[in-house]
C-alpha cells in the first residue's frame, strides 16, 4: 500500500518522498569501515584497541579540525561550482598577522614594538579580517573579471604565501600572550570546528544564502534570470571561505604560540580532499556540510590509524591519494545512476 491512513480514517496520498537514505549514509559507512579496519589491524599488529582510547578519539578530530575549518568554506565555494586553492596560504598570512599583534612586551624584537600586550581580541579580529579580505579579493576576481576560480585562487595561493614570508622576511614570530594562545589550547579547535560546521550546515539548508549558493552552482544563467546578483553572492561565498581560513590561521598561531610563514602548507588540497570525499560534487550544485565533516574525520582516522599501526608516512600519502580518487569515482557513478533514473 502506498497510501497511508491517518487517524481520521481518510486516505491521504503521500506528498512527501518515500524515505531514502541520505547521501551521507554511504560516506559514514566508509568511515566506520576504515575505523574498524584499523581496529582489527591494531589488535593484530600491536595487540591493543585503536578506538578504545578516548584520548586518541579526540586527537583524531583535533589534528584535522583546522583542515575541517578550511573545508567548510571550500565546500561552499565548490557548491557554486568554483574551487579555492588559496586556503592554506591565506591561513599562513592570517597566522602571521595575528601573531604579530599578539606579542608580549618582554620581546625585544617584536614586529610592532609599539603594539604589544594588546588584548587577545585584536589579533583574533585582525587575523580573521585579513582572511576575509583575501577571500573577497578571490570572489571579486571571479565575479568581475570572469577568470576561472582555479586561476584566481591559484594566484592568491602564491601571493598570500609570498606576503606571509615578506611580512617578517621569513622570520618566525614568537612570544605570544597567554590570553591569545589559550584560544588554541586543549580541545578548543575541535569545538570551533564543530560549531562552525553547525552554523554553515544551517545556513546552507535553511537560509536564502544557502538556496542561492546551490542555485548558482546548479545553473548560473538561470540563477541570474531568477533575480540573483551572482557577482555579489560569489564575493560573499569566497569571502566566507577566506574568513574561515583566517580563523584557521588564528587558531594555528594560538595553538603553536608562533607565527610561521610555512604554516598550512598543502592544507588547501587536504581541505578539497575532505570536501570531495564528503560527496560534494566538483561540478557544483550538490554537497553538504555533514558530508564534509565526515570526510574530514576520515582524513583524521587515516592519519592516526596509519601512525598507530606503524605505516610509513610515504605509504600514507599513496593510500590517501587512492582514497580521494576512489571517492570521486564513486561520486561519478552516483551522478550517472541518478541521471538515468
Amino acid at each position: 500500500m502506498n497510501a497511508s491512513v491517518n487517524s481520521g480514517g481518510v486516505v491521504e496520498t503521500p506528498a512527501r518522498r518515500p524515505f531514502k537514505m541520505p547521501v551521507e549514509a554511504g560516506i559514514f559507512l566508509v568511515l566506520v569501515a576504515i575505523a574498524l579496519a584499523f581496529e582489527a589491524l591494531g589488535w593484530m599488529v600491536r595487540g591493543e584497541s585503536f578506538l578504545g582510547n578516548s584520548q586518541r578519539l579526540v586527537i583524531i578530530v583535533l589534528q584535522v579540525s583546522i583542515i575541517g575549518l578550511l573545508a567548510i568554506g571550500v565546500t561552499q565555494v565548490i557548491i557554486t561550482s568554483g574551487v579555492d586553492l588559496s586556503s592554506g596560504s591565506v591561513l599562513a598570512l592570517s597566522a602571521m598577522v595575528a601573531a604579530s599583534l599578539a606579542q608580549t612586551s618582554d620581546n625585544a624584537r617584536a614586529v610592532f614594538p609599539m603594539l604589544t600586550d594588546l588584548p587577545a581580541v585584536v589579533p583574533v579580529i585582525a587575523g580573521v579580517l585579513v582572511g576575509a579580505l583575501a577571500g573577497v579579493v578571490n570572489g571579486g576576481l571571479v565575479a568581475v573579471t570572469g577568470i576561472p576560480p582555479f586561476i584566481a585562487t591559484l594566484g592568491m595561493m602564491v601571493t598570500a604565501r609570498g606576503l606571509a614570508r615578506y611580512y617578517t622576511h621569513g622570520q618566525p614570530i614568537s612570544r605570544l600572550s597567554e590570553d591569545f594562545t589559550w584560544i588554541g589550547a586543549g580541545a578548543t579547535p575541535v569545538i570551533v570546528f564543530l560549531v562552525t560546521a553547525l552554523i554553515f550546515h544551517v545556513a546552507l539548508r535553511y537560509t536564502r544564502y544557502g538556496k542561492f549558493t546551490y542555485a548558482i552552482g546548479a545553473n548560473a544563467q538561470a540563477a541570474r534570470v531568477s533575480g540573483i546578483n551572482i557577482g555579489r553572492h560569489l564575493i560573499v561565498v569566497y569571502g566566507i571561505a577566506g574568513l574561515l581560513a583566517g580563523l584557521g590561521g588564528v587558531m594555528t598561531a594560538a595553538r603553536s604560540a608562533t607565527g610561521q610563514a610555512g604554516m598550512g602548507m598543502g592544507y588547501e588540497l587536504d581541505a578539497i580532499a575532505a570536501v570531495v570525499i564528503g560527496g560534494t560534487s566538483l561540478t557544483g550544485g550538490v554537497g553538504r556540510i555533514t558530508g564534509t565533516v565526515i570526510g574530514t574525520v576520515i582524513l583524521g582516522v587515516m592519519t592516526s590509524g596509519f601512525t598507530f599501526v606503524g605505516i610509513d608516512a610515504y605509504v600514507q600519502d599513496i593510500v590517501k591519494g587512492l582514497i580521494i580518487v576512489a571517492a570521486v569515482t564513486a561520486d561519478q557513478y552516483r551522478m550517472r545512476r541518478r541521471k538515468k533514473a
Partner: protein
Amino acid sequence: MAVTALGMMTPPSVSTHAPPYLLEVDSVRKEFPGVVALDSVCLRIRPGTVHALMGENGAGKSTLMKIIAGIYTPDQGMIRLRGEPCRLTSPLDALEAGIAMIHQELNLMSFMTIAENIWIRREPLNRFGLVDHAELRRRTRDLFRRLKIDLDPDQAVGELTVAGRQMVEIAKAVSYDSDVLIMDEPTSALTDREVAHLFAIVEDLRSRGKAIIYITHKMNEVFEIADDISIFRDGRHILTDAASNLTRDKLINLMVGREITQMFPKGESKIGEVVLSVENLALEGVFSNVSFELRAGEILGIAGLVGSGRTNVAEAIFGMTPATAGTIRIDGKPVRVDSPKTAMAHKLALLTEDRKETGLFLMLSVLENMELAALTDRYVQGGFVAQSELNGICATMKNTLRVKTPHLQECIENLSGGNQQKVLIARWLMTQPRVLILDEPTRGIDVGAKAEIHRLISDLAAQGMAIIMISSELPEILGMSDRVMVMHEGRVTGTVDRADADQVTIMRLASG
C-alpha cells in the same frame, strides 16, 4: 560459395531476396528504475521512406531512438537490420551498421573546424601518417555541393548559428552513407527557409533508398514530409499508418488518448489600464525603434522569424541585456532596468526561451526550482527561509498547474518537458508579477500540456495580468493574442489586431 554474375552486380539491398523492411524493431522493452519506458514495442521501417514518430513527451520515442542508435541496449526484444538480427552496444556499432542519429542536443566540438568535425575519426592521412587537410577540405566541399550547403569547411563550428550547426550534423550523418537516419526534432531551431532546405535534403535521401526516422511535434511538417506515421503513447506503440490515411485531429486524439476540444482558448478578459509601455527601445546592432503599449488583461503576441530580435526585446525589457536606448515605463513612470533583479522589483517576469540553459536547475528538486525567484523579496525573514509556508504554496501551485510529479522533492530532471515548463511558470507566478513575458512557452511540449498552458495563460490574462507571448507557432499566436506585433531583422514591421490577424498577413510582415 557460388555467386552468380547477376548476384555480384546487384547490391543486396535491392536484390529480390531483400526483406521489405530495412529496419525492424521486435517487441523491445526498456525499463528505467521505476518507469517502463518502452513496453513490447514493434516498429518496421521501409527503405526509401520518411517515417515520422509522434507522441507526447515521455511517450518513449526518444528512448526507442536511443536504442536504435546504440546508446541504450534493450532489456528484451531485438532489432533486425536488413532482415539480420543485430546487437548494437554503442553508437559506434550503430554507425558501422549504417544507422546515424542527428541529436536534439547538438554534439559538435565548437573549437574545431566544420571539416574536422564531420570527418572525425575518419581523417584522411598523408604518407607521413598526418592529417591531410587539403583532402579533408576537398571531401567536405564535395559533400556540401551534393547537399547544397553553403558553408566554409574551415570555419570553426562555434561561430555557426544553430541552423548552421544543424546542417553540419546532417552532413556528418550523410557522410557515413548510413541507410537509416534518425532526426530528433531537427527543425525546432530552424527558420522556414532552412526547414525547406532540410526537407530538400530529406527528399534526396529518400530517393536514394535511405530510410529517415523523423521525430517531431509539428503537425504541418508531418503531413508535408512523412510517408508513414507511427504513434506512441505511454511507452507503447499505438499505431502505424500511411500519412495519407491520417488527419490532424485523428493524430492528436491518438497521441493524447482523449479529445481536445480547443487548442488555443484565449477567453474573455477585461482590458484595463496601460501597465507597460516601451518607447523607441534599441539594442545597438540587434534591434531598434521598438515601441508598444501593454494593458492589464491583454496578451500581446510577438511574431517573427528566428533572429528577428523578438527574444532580444524580451531580454532587454527584463534587463538580461539592458537596452542601449529608449524608455521603459511602468504605470507611466520611466524605470531603469539593468538586471533581472531590478526588473523583478518592478514586477516583471520572463519565462525564457531555452528551458535548459536559462531556466532549469536540473540537479535540484521541483521545490527548489519553483521557490527560487520568490526568495528575492519574500518568504525570507532575517535571512531564514519560511520553508513550511513555501512548501504549502508550492504544493498549491503544483496542484493548480497540474504538475505531474510524485512529490515536490523529485529531481526536476526526471519530469517531462511540459511539466518542467509548468514548474518554471509557477516560479514566476510566485513572484506575483504584473507583466509576464513568455518566450516560446510551449516549445517542445506535448499536445496535452500545451493546451493546459494555453488555458493557464488565458486565465492569468482574465485575472488582469499583462502578458507578452513570443512564439514561432502561428496558430498559437493567432489563437492567444489580442494584438500581434511582428518583427523582422530587428524592426517592428507591423502590429495587427486580433480581428485582422491571419497567417498570411503575419507571414508577410515577418518576411519584411
